[in-house]
């Protein structure tokens, strides 16, 4: 909810001013940061489950590791914005 309010505030600021309140590079930085936050949140659950699975069966280590870092792709994709800007 807080993010939504922030975005709304940004939007009104943007509409009122002629110069952008957030320069494009800063916008891209925010995008990457939010993506990293999302990835971290996703990894929290997966990591917990992976550790549980590894505790039961050592062979699950590789698979658990891969599944745990899968959400990192979010950040990698978000990095594209840096180059687009």
């Amino acid at each position, binding site marked *: 909810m807080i993010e939504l309010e922030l975005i709304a505030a940004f939007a009104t600021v943007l509409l009122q001013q002629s110069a952008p309140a957030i320069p494009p590079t800063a916008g891209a930085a925010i995008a990457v940061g939010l993506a990293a936050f999302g990835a971290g949140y996703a990894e929290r659950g997966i990591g917990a*489950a992976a550790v*549980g*699975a590894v*505790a039961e069966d050592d062979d699950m280590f590789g698979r658990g590791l891969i599944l745990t870092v899968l959400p990192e792709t979010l950040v990698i994709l978000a990095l594209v914005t840096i180059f687009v800007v």
Partner: protein
Amino acid sequence: MSIGTPSEQSSNYEYVTARVRSRKAKLYDEDDYRKLTRMGTGEIARFMEESEYETEMNDLGARYSGVDLVEYALNRSRAKHFSDLLRWADGRLYSYVARYLRRFDTWNAKTVLRGIYSGADREAIETDLVRAGEFDEQFVSRLLDAGSVEAVVDLLDGTVLGAGLAEAYEEYEQHDRLVPLENAIDRAYYENLMKGLPADPSRPTALYIEFLRAEIDFRNLRNALRLARSGADVDPSEYYIEDGDLFSAADLDRLVGNTDELLTRVRESRYGDRLSAALDDLETADSLMRFERALDAALLEYAEYLSRSYPLSVCPVFSYVLMKEREVRNVRAIARGREAGLGAEEIEDDLVVL
């Protein structure tokens, strides 16, 4: 134990369900049971040693043999797995699991009562206990040392299982029957099961309550059928457990006298679909034992369904608890059956719940 006041700590569903699922995958499957039904007791013990029960078998192998070895290994492994559950779980999940595992306290209390009533010695009773509940070592050994039914009742009086025990004890003294005491313990357990749950449950909690309700309903149904079948002159409300969906106490009173109506009621309830095969069986073959097994199977299936639909909730944990229980019961039934010289077919048909 923080039963009744769920801790504010957050629950670790991901971790616990991952471990539980892994353990569930290691339980014996249908093929294993088929193999087991064709083995002698020695072979069963060896089979178990080569699978999940290795530690238990190695620990106990020197002291026991045959069916006893199988049975003690099963009990010990069950206690180990269930106390593991309590060790892993945090927050609300812990309190839900602990609540449910208190059933082993009722089992232990009843076992001690029965043992003392029948004059079994301490060691024999002790080996039948399952140490997976809330009672600690010290309390259990005090129960074992109690020596008389009255002393056990006194000890239990201070615990959550104590409600209603005093009245039941009077009845026990009059008729010299353990049944009232056992019922009082069961009822105290089920009443505590539903007590102190949040008033406006979130979805997982609602599911948990639904699950418990299914158990209570099935228990009521089983009691009703047994009473109807045995034709015993017992007041059905004596066995009635509240908080179920299926029957009220008055319903039960009426329906015990009328099996057809009872079955119709079940058929029309929300369990009807799942139980229809079992109900047909009961009407035609007239076999209560099979119906009870079908009830068990239906409860397992329902638990399995819930655990798949809501992977991050208490449901997978309960499903595991039920399946482990089933495994213990099945393997024990097979071992005992083989020892008694029953044929593989007979065991498979009548004892094993798949």
